[in-house]
């Protein structure tokens, strides 16, 4: 797809920011009108920073302090329905408490954007990272991006409003990243001196159907069996469109600002027998783990899933089509499923209709932030080659690194 946008003249500041702060900077630069949030670890510093921007006069927005996440998203939805550019942020139990409202945001076709510092779920209580919270939102009709650096968190939230407010999409967007492992990690991030180029890229769409006392409408009314299905099918169609819109948003972002990510990212997949698939911050660890192996001539590569919903089937198939074995590392468990990794399941179903396809192995790791080092990744790579030699992938997910379980 040709992108003909001129490169924007932007003066960037290079700041040490956590992913949480990067999210707050994006909200400021996007001139968001209304933020409603309830504090929850490890998300809290996103809204604390936004509150600071509002207090300093750097952002002219309404901050609504609510009594729960259920109310936080409800207030965000109300603001968005009234035409405002609205934002919220949460994690873990907070995202679970929002669950019913997630469907309302997408069903009302409101371009809300939310950042998620992903975290494990109770019980038992864990404040640490995994992706159980995010994966539970899979079927809520939210467009979902998973970032792997603080810079990408900033850039993705900018792209998120562009996608969400597109008249042909009009769906909410989540931008997720690892709680703690990214939310509290300081690293260099480029933010613009002046936010005008950001708003030129993602101008506010006030020209949409909204609640307006001059022209009253109702939203989300009782809808009988004669029409409900059509509303839901429209969401299906909008989600399909969102895939190319997300691609285009990223391409145009790259053309303007010089940074782009694609819907997926790959490393050495052309030349690899084994490809490791990961998402979020783990991808960087995977790359540093396999780089020395590739230098030694080991035929291993990696792929990162950036767009989780809508799922970029064709991109994934193209990236993984040359591999003999694909090992998908999931940081969430779908309990009771033989293949319990949500992304592994999706990768498998992408290839179902093809005659020639790679073996696909599902590995669960990093649950409740169980430590994953480069050594862990290299053990998984070694095991993948073992499986490749045997010529048959395990039919069940492997639970890597859990006590009392070993794979021969």
């Amino acid at each position: 797809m040709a992108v003909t946008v001129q490169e924007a003249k932007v003066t960037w500041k290079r700041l040490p920011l956590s992913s949480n702060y990067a999210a707050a900077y994006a909200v400021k630069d996007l001139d968001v009108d209304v933020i409603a949030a309830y504090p929850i670890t490890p998300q809290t510093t996103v809204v604390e920073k936004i509150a600071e921007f509002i207090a300093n006069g750097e952002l002219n927005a309404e901050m609504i302090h609510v009594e729960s996440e259920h109310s936080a998203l409800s207030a965000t939805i109300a603001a968005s329905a009234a035409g405002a550019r609205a934002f919220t942020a949460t994690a873990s139990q907070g995202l679970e408490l929002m669950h019913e409202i997630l469907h309302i945001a997408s069903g009302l076709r409101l371009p809300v954007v939310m950042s998620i510092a992903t975290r494990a779920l109770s019980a038992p209580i864990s404040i640490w990272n995994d992706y159980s919270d995010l994966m539970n939102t899979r079927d809520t009709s939210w467009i979902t991006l998973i970032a792997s650096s603080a810079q990408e968190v900033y850039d993705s939230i900018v792209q998120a409003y562009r996608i969400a407010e597109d008249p042909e999409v009009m769906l909410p967007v989540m931008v997720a990243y690892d709680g703690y492992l990214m939310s509290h990690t300081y690293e260099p991030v480029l933010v613009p001196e002046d936010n005008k180029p950001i708003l030129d890229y993602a101008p506010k769409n006030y020209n949409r159907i909204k609640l307006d006392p001059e022209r009253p409408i109702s939203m989300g009314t009782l809808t009988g069996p004669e029409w409900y299905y059509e509303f839901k099918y429209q969401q299906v169609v909008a989600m399909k469109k969102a895939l190319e819109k997300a691609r285009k948003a990223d391409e145009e972002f790259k053309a303007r600002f010089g940074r782009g990510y694609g819907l997926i990212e790959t490393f050495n997949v052309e030349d690899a027998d084994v490809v490791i698939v990961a998402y979020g911050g783990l991808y960087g660890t995977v790359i540093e783990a396999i780089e020395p192996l590739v230098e030694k001539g080991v035929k291993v590569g990696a792929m990162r899933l950036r767009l989780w919903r809508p799922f970029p089937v064709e991109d994934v198939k193209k990236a993984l089509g040359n591999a003999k074995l694909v090992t998908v590392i999931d940081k969430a468990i779908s309990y009771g499923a033989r293949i319990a990794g949500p992304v592994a399941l999706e990768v498998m179903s992408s290839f179902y209709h093809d005659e020639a396809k790679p073996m696909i192995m599902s590995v669960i790791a990093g649950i409740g932030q169980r430590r994953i080092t480069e050594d862990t990744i290299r053990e998984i790579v070694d095991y993948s080659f073992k499986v490749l030699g045997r010529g048959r992938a395990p039919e069940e997910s492997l639970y890597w690194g859990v006590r009392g379980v070993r794979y021969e």
Partner: protein
Amino acid sequence: MRFEIRWHGRGGQGAVTAAMILAEAAIFEGKYAQAFPEFGAERRGAPVRAYTRVSDKPILTRAPITRPDVVVVLDSSLPKELYLAGLKEGGLILVNTKKTAGEFAESTGIDTSKYRLYTVDATRIALEILGVPIVNTAMVGALVKVLPIVSLENVEKAIMETFPGRLGEKNVKAVRAAYEAVAAESVVAR
């Protein structure tokens, strides 16, 4: 060249902030850096770990540092097994203690033919200048003296960004005092 630094302290001493200030200073210097804490259920007195990576090239990994080049020990009462774990041979140890490096090596049995050991009395500096035993900024000052990967100027800038105003100025004083003291008080036992 990448340096991997692991900070060991107890809750309340500011190890997490120290890790962050060093990374901020490196970023101000135009380098790549990453700082993150190893979160536990934080409470005062409990052992705390934090990490800083500094490099000329982008840093992709987010794994905790298990084979550090440098360990900084904010509390000398921590068991040495905790902070020596995985330290590279020839690695650097910087300890907050009243003892000289020679005395500290003798009392703990740290093998100074394997590691470079430095000591600084950061608690005294913190008490004198800040009035509280929060030694993080002093330890950053001492570290950049013995491991000059970032300039003192950028450390001071990072501190002023983290603690604006008078508190920042006091911490800058602590940094400078420790920067001077570490050389005077330590014995490079190799």
